[in-house]
């Protein structure tokens, strides 16, 4: 159970700083697939950072299994939005995987299998000797996905993990992720800006409002079986609801060039 | 002297070291003797004769004061461009051998390690001390140590004795009076010198020659004060170098200020030269007719600069 109550986040000085989040209350059950959806810059990454323990909440409390979150922990694995920054540039693709398994204390005998399995899943098996600087943007994201999955954490915090992937690759990744989620019962908090992606994956979709002082405007629960089809009428209705919720939000802040 | 005052004072740059054996110059400066001779003296201090010569070598400075060995070495190096004009000061008490308490006779040094600045007058002192006392120098290990660390090394027992100039010895006795004592001073072995030398180029011009003569004359007047008036020297040392009266006294007591190029000088430098050749510090005999420039002293008083011996 991952719980935030009354969380506010202010960047900069206590007063007069930029209030990114205001009064966020969420409770994510074990094994839930929870999607955070919201316009660019609304505070999705900030919220995820608080859950991961990277940033303290300015006000309010964040707990995991009733223990306050005070720092990064091995039970909550983060997938970083900026994929390159989290990889070790001096290790090859395979060595980056091995590093993860080593610090995770996974027995050495199983490394080759685990590495093969996850690199194949993200289609990087032929690129295992490249360094991160030699990978394309999408490949870096896929390497980070493979690493995050390989260590099998209790909770996966994923910040737009598929943003740089093409539609077809992304579809496969969805299937892979759902497979793993269903087989292992992980909790997944998944940030995306793609409504379709959220609809296909989530148990719960939290829609956030535009910043500053972003809130969670509404929660949508989806009990449909998976795999889902976006043409499904209930999904289309939800999609329309979400768009309707977001459109005025975005109008509120944007202006088009004449 | 009268003619000098009429003209604007002539510039003369002197390189020296901050040491009490310069007291003749100090007193000359303190009593404006140089100004009275029509000289405008620039008195520049260097930490050692060697560093003074380094700068002198580049063509700067007119007169340089330095120890015996640096003068000889520089003379060979400068290929005739440098000549000694007078002995300012010499003394044998200014050099001491300090040893640990268990070393009582020269023979006790056999098999032990002693220290000095290798290649300095201290080396010469060790060599003379050992040979004159019938100790085979090869049975004593001589270590090269910077003067600053000699007291520490002796007090800690890293070495059995050292041979060097003052105030290193008295300082050591201050630090560890229980472990150290004076083994000897240099009386009967060597004498340490403060030598004034000048650029040959300067000496070859009539004007330069005149300046040097006036410099010598003024320094002699300073010498007369320095010899008698300890209080004036101590005041000067206190004001300019922050030396305590006690420290000044120790050295002042031993200073001999010939302001001449006398027999003793020739003898000492002969034996210095022989030691230096033996120890491969120099490679040729010292030719006094080239090494010294007697005209200045002769112009003041012929007795001050007798003829030197042949090269030795």
């Amino acid at each position, binding site marked *: 159970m991952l719980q935030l*109550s*009354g969380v*506010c986040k202010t960047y900069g000085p*206590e007063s007069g700083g930029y209030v990114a989040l205001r009064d966020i209350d969420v409770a994510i059950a074990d094994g839930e697939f929870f999607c955070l959806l919201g316009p660019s810059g609304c505070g999705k990454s900030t919220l995820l950072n608080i859950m991961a323990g990277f940033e303290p*909440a*300015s*006000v*309010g*409390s964040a707990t995991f299994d009733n223990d306050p979150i005070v720092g990064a922990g091995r039970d909550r694995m983060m997938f970083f939005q900026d994929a390159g920054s989290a990889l070790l540039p001096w290790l090859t693709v395979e060595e980056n995987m091995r590093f993860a398994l080593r610090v995770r204390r996974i027995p050495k005998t199983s490394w080759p299998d685990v590495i093969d399995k996850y690199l194949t899943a993200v289609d990087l098996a032929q690129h295992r000797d490249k360094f991160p600087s030699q990978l394309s943007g999408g490949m870096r994201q896929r390497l980070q996905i493979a690493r995050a999955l390989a260590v099998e954490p209790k909770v996966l915090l994923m910040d737009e993990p598929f943003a740089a992937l093409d539609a077809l690759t992304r579809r496969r990744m969805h299937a892979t992720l759902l497979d793993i989620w269903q087989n292992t019962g992980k909790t997944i908090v998944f940030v995306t800006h793609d409504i379709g992606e959220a609809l296909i994956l989530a148990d719960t979709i939290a829609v956030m409002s535009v910043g500053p002082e972003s809130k969670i405007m509404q929660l949508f629960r989806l009990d449909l079986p998976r795999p889902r089809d976006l043409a499904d009428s209930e999904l289309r209705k939800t999609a329309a609801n979400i768009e309707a919720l977001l459109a005025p939000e975005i109008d509120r802040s944007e202006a088009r060039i004449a | 002297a009268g003619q000098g005052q009429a003209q604007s004072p002539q510039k003369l740059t002197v*390189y020296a*070291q*901050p*040491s009490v054996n310069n007291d003749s110059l100090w007193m000359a400066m303190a009593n404006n003797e140089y100004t009275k001779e029509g000289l405008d003296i620039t008195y*520049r*201090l*260097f*930490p*050692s004769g060697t*560093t003074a010569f*380094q*700068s002198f*070598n*580049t063509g*700067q*400075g007119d007169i340089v004061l330095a120890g015996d060995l640096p003068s000889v070495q520089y003379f060979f190096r400068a290929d005739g461009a440098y000549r000694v004009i007078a002995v300012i000061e010499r003394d044998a008490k200014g050099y001491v051998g300090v040893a640990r308490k268990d070393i009582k006779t020269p023979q006790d040094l056999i098999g032990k390690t002693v220290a000095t600045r290798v290649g300095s007058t201290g080396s010469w002192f060790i060599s003379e001390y050992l040979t004159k006392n019938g100790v085979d120098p090869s049975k004593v290990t001589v270590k090269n140590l910077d*003067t*600053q660390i000699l*007291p*520490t090394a002796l*007090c800690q027992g890293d070495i059995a004795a050292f041979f060097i100039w003052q*105030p*290193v010895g008295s*300082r050591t006795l*201050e*630090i*560890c009076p229980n472990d150290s004592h004076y083994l000897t001073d240099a009386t009967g072995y060597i004498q340490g010198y403060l030598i004034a030398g000048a650029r040959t180029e300067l000496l070859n011009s009539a004007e330069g020659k005149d300046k040097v003569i006036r410099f010598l004359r003024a320094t002699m007047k300073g010498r007369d004060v320095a010899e008698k008036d300890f209080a004036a020297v101590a005041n000067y040392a206190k004001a300019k*170098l*922050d*030396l305590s009266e006690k*420290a000044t006294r120790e050295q002042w007591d031993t200073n001999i200020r010939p302001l001449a190029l006398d027999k003793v000088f020739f003898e000492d430098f002969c034996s210095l030269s022989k030691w230096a050749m033996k120890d491969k510090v120099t490679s040729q005999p010292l030719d006094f007719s080239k090494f010294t420039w007697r005209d200045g002293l002769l112009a003041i008083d012929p007795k001050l600069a007798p003829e030197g011996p042949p090269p030795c």
Partner: protein
Amino acid sequence: MASTGIKTAPASIVSVYQMRMASIWRRHRSLGLTIMSLILGFAGWQLLSTFVFSPFLVPPPVRVIRTAIPMLLSGEILHDVLISLSRVFVGFITGSIAAILLGVILGRISTLHDLVDPIIELLRYLSPTAMIPIAVIWFGIGEMSKYFLIFWGTFFIMLVNTIAGVLRTPIARQRAAQCLGASQLEIFAYIVVPSAVPYIVTGMRVAMASAFMSIIPAEILAADSGIGYLLQNSSMLLQTDRIFVALLTISVLGFLCDRALRLIVDLTLTRFTLPA
């Protein structure tokens, strides 16, 4: 137990209170630790020199300070400090500027770098002490040669650091600037130099120490004032207390200059030194 009042307060108030305390602590912590550190350092020195070494070899701080007080009151130290500081400043600043300019050029033009590097690589092992004779030949025994020796002690450190910083300028930044139409000079000034700032600042901190160390050889050279001269002179006369006064003065000056450098960097260059 006394804090029950706070414990029952609503979460947000506790948090605001804690934040206020934390920020006060943070603001004063650094100063407090600095003072504690200095006290510990001096206490350690006092103990060491009293019980481990002989106080004649390493005079305890109390004695050093007792020696320093009359020197301070008479203005002797202040005079020496001002003279040495002005020498360090001229040498350090000219050395830094020259090295940054040359470093940026060498870091960008690899042929020139390869051509000049071996000569630099041979010269930079020569200490300021070794350069004294050359300094005298070139600049005589006046102030210029002292500036030169401190320049020498600064220049190569700054050069190595600047080149390292320039070579690590992210390529995308340069490419973006080229696309925008920046001239080579603008890329130097607006992209390469700012990107190298963290290395340059580190270099300046190291070079500052080297500059202060170079006072000593610089003031061997016919100086009659300055901290280096005080040290030289006291060493020759074996005045241990005064030696330590000189060393302490150099240390304190260096410490203060480093703090000043850091402050200036914090005030003006923070934006360039933030970690990515």
